[in-house]
Structure formats: C-alpha cells, structure tokens
C-alpha cells in the first residue's frame, strides 16, 4: 500500500502517469490522450494519496474499489496502474495490440486492477451502488470510487444510480465526474445542458464538491473531505479539467472528443511535458 501525502511527490506521479499515457498513445498512434492528460492529476491523487490497495494483490479484499465507467479513459487508468506497480511497465508497449491485456477500451476480464467493463457509457455508477451495498453488507471499511465523464450525465441510468445512492445513503461511494466539457458531438454543455450540477446533485442527497481537477492541492483536499465528511451521504467530486493538460500545444488544439495527434507529435508532446515539468 502506498500513501504519500506531500504534493510535490504527487506532481511526480502525475507527470509519470501523463508520460506513460503518451508513450502508449505513440504505440498505437492514437488514443483518448487529451482526456488522459486532463484526468492524470485526479488519478495521481486517487492512487498515491487516497486509496488503499496492494499492487501485488489487485483483488485484495480490503482494497478500495476503483471503477472506470468511462472505458475510453483506459489509457489513463493503465498509465496509473503502471505507475502504481499493478501492471508491469513493459506491457505499455502492447497497448491496443492483439493479445494485449491493455485493450483500448477498459474491460475487467483483461486487466489487473480494472474493476468493470466500460465502453458502453453510464454503467459505472449503477455497479458502484451494488458494490457500495455489498461492502456495507460485509461491514467492510473499503470504499468504491467511480470515475465517469460529463457526457455520461446524459444517460438516464446515471441518474437512476445517483438517486438510489442517495436513497441508500451510500457514504462509502465517492463519484468523480470529469467535466472537460467535451463529448463525441461537441461541448458537453451544448450537447445537453447538465448544469447546475452542484445543485442537482445536492438535491439528490449527495455531498458535493466542485474543484479545479488539475490543481493537485485542490484534488487532495477534495478527496480528503470526501472521505472524512460526517454526513451519511454519497460523495461527488466534480472535477473541472483541461483537455490535453500538461502539453501546451494539445491544450490549445481545437477541442475534439478524439484529438488527432500526428505521428511525429508524440515525441514533441513528451518533450513539451518534460519542459513543463522543469519550468
């Protein structure tokens, strides 16, 4: 189990997760890299500050569960699982290839540490409700974390789960919604107006925090508050993030759900990431 509390170390972790993701992107020449870069800070805090787990035993009974509802973020989670020592680093080169344990869309049956099969969006929170109920039945201290995307808020099933988590007062469920305001057909708020999100979730009985998801101190504080909040309510962290974060030319690229990166740009991106770290 790893628990590091000092933010500079977390910055290193976030850097390594971004770097792993870019290296995987280069293997296939594609991937949801802009999303991976935007969520790396959240994953760094989740895996190196907040969650309990054993890298050598991904199904350790007392681990915190992490559900990746937005299966297309798999490249980001693999990057974190590699950094956490759950997936060996050398498998990075197999990303998206035949026989790889790292398919482009996350699936539980492929990858150690992957707790659900995503891809079809809007599944994660419903599973999390069942896991939350199951952990309580077992009187387990473990928590269930669920990462999902703002586009998934369009799915009715997400609100079924949000309503039931409030009904069952699942204080062991921590949701993280990545608001990068980009989904397949355009800016999420334009595709389907989901604001005011804080008020909506509060009305459903959740303890809600909204933070800059690329501010490590804010992410740490939000996870800490989500764990320690005394009310018997499920907890939601709304993380506003910047797609492409950490690679300036990708941050500035015209926003798209699936950002195109030319073959020669992967090395440039890695260099830009490195330069940003030293700055």
């Amino acid at each position, binding site marked *: 189990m790893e628990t590091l509390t000092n933010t500079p170390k977390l910055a290193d972790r976030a850097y390594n997760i971004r770097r792993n993701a870019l290296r995987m992107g280069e293997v296939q020449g594609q991937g949801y890299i802009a999303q991976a870069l935007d969520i790396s800070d959240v994953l760094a805090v989740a895996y190196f500050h907040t969650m309990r787990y054993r890298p050598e035993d991904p199904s350790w009974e007392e681990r915190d569960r992490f559900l990746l509802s937005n299966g297309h973020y798999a490249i980001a989670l693999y990057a974190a699982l590699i950094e956490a020592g759950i997936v060996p680093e050398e498998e990075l080169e197999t990303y998206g290839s035949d026989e790889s344990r790292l398919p482009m869309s996350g*699936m539980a*049956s492929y990858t150690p540490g992957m707790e659900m*099969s995503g891809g079809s969006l809007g599944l994660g929170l419903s599973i999390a409700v*069942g*896991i939350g*109920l199951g952990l309580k039945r077992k009187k387990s201290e473990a928590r269930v974390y669920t990462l999902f995307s703002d586009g998934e808020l369009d799915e009715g099933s997400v609100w079924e789960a949000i309503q039931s988590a409030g009904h069952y007062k699942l204080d062991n469920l921590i949701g993280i919604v990545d608001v990068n305001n980009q989904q397949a057909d355009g800016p999420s708020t334009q595709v389907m107006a989901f604001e005011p999100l804080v008020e909506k979730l509060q009305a459903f009985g959740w303890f809600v925090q909204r933070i800059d998801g690329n501010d490590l101190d804010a992410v740490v504080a939000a996870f800490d508050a989500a764990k320690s909040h005394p009310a018997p309510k499920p907890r939601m962290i709304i993380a506003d993030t910047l797609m492409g974060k950490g690679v300036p030319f990708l941050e500035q690229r015209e926003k798209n759900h699936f950002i195109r990166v030319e073959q020669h740009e992967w090395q440039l991106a890695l260099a830009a990431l490195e330069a940003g770290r030293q700055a």
Partner: protein
Amino acid sequence: MKTVRSAPQPGMPRPTTSAMIASIAAEGQKTKPAPFGHALVELARSRPDVVGMTADLGKYTDLHIFAKEFPDRYYQMGMAEQLLFGAASGLAAEGFMPFATTYAVFASRRAYDFIHQTIAEEDRNVKIVCALPGLTSGYGPSHQAAEDLALFRAMPNMTVIDPCDAHEIEQLVPGIAAHQGPVYMRLLRGQVPVVLDEYDYKFELGKAKLIRDGKDVLIISSGIMTMRALEALQTLKNDRVDAAVLHVPTIKPLDAETILREAGKSGRLVVVAENHTTIGGLGEAIAALLMRSGVHPPFRQIALPDEFLDAGALPTLHDRYGISTAEVARQIKLWL
C-alpha cells in the same frame, strides 16, 4: 403505417379481461402459491450469500415472500431496471448471489445492455428471474415478452431456463444457485399450476427429460407448453395419435444429446412447442441443431407469430395464436 382498429360491432363476443396479471392455471387445476418465493426463502436459510433485488415488482414476482422473511437481505431499487442489473452486478462482485426480479419485457428489452456488459461479460453470479414470459399477460406488447428467449440465448455466458410449473420452479431455484454464473429464468408467479409431480420428474440444469414416450409424434417443448402438450395427449389419444413429450427447460445450453437421440428415432413427426415467437427460441435452436447434425425428421413449430400480439383475455389469445391445449392437438392432427 399504424392503423387504428375498428370498434367492436354489436353482437360481437364481449371481451373478457385483458388484465396485466392473469393466471395461467385452468379452472380447478391443482396449483401452489408463489413457488419461487418460498423456494428462495428455503435456499436463503442455508445460503447467507443470497440477496433479493427488484425494480418495484417484488409483489408481482413473488419476491415479497423473501422480503418478509429476510428484510435486511432485500433491495428495492425502484422502477429502474438498468440500475437493478448494474447494482446486481456490483453485489455479485462483492461475493453475493443476487436474485434480481422484474418482468421479462423489462429485463430483455430495457436493460439488455446492462445485463450484457455488467453481468454476462463479467460472468457475474446473478440470477435474473422474470415474470410474464412469452404470452402470459393479456395487457398487450408492453408486457408480452414474446422474444425474451431469443435475446438471452444470443448473450454469451448466459444460461436460459423456461420452467413448466410450480414443481419445477421449486427444484430449479437450488439448481441454478448451484451453478456459478449468470442465469435468466422465466418465472411463473402467483397461483402456479402443478403438473410434473405426476410424472416422477426431476429438474436437472442442462437436461431435457422425456416425460412421455409415444410412436407417432415427438413434441419437444419448454415452459408452459410442456403442460399444454401433456394436456393435449388425451385428445390425441382419442384420435389414435400416440405422442411423446420431451421437456427442455434449459434452453441454453441445449441438451443436444437427448434431443438428437429422441428426434433421430425414425418415423416420428417432430413438433417443437414454445411460448415464444417463432424467431430465435427453442424451435429455431432445435431446427439448427438437427440440420447441423444431419438429423432430418419431419419438423413443425408451434410458436407465437412474428407480430405484435393482441391485448385480450389469455384463453382467447392462446387459442388465437395456437398455443392453447386444443390448438396444440388440432395442429398436430392436421400435420400427421
């Protein structure tokens, strides 16, 4: 284009009831109340991992019996079938064995992707138990699950069960609990006919059972159509037709060995009878099996038509669509 029906003419027979919940038991037939609910309570006494879940249909799937006995092991998920099956996957992931109930239409048509992705793909130990299978409601297509078997047969990892009566339901609850993996089970609820107890029948997962032997025709059937076939035997006998009945409660995986053995006996017409559309159910499964295996008996199907079924009283509809006892006998005589 959708056309609106004509109004009933004076003198036309008055419709009886097109209620959502109608009993499939005939007048005076021997029945048992809520066999699933009672069997689940019995199972849960020795299996602490059993939990019950429903989407606002506890009372209508006989799960209320379990809820009353084990209130802290019962999860009401509200009228939200996608959540029901997603959460069932989560509880199964934590080592529990959820029996999740709703109507067959909602599990198969509304929550299909959730069952496919969160239960079947991950091979979770969830038992999906669904009332109103096939044509067992007169309420119209919203509650008539004519295609549920086709949909769940097509799903990898899924075991599919279509029981005949209360006797079988009591046996298959522990039977499917002993099987590790997802199961879709059609449910008969309320006052459920008891038929198979008179035939020394024992349910075994994956096994077809010859209930009656006969030399002229082999009726292969599942669910309530086995009851119909057995009821039709007397009429057929009066017309000197000697019929065998092979009951196939496990639709998937199919007991190919027994089916091929019985269908391969020469000189018999093979009739597959199912409470399901002609498309993708037991009939087509057996037809494909026979073709693949080079067994080619004369073959007929008794099944619901490929159309949206009418609302109406169940006896009327079962006659109209050829799955009543009288219609089973009539069609078989016609084909011989």
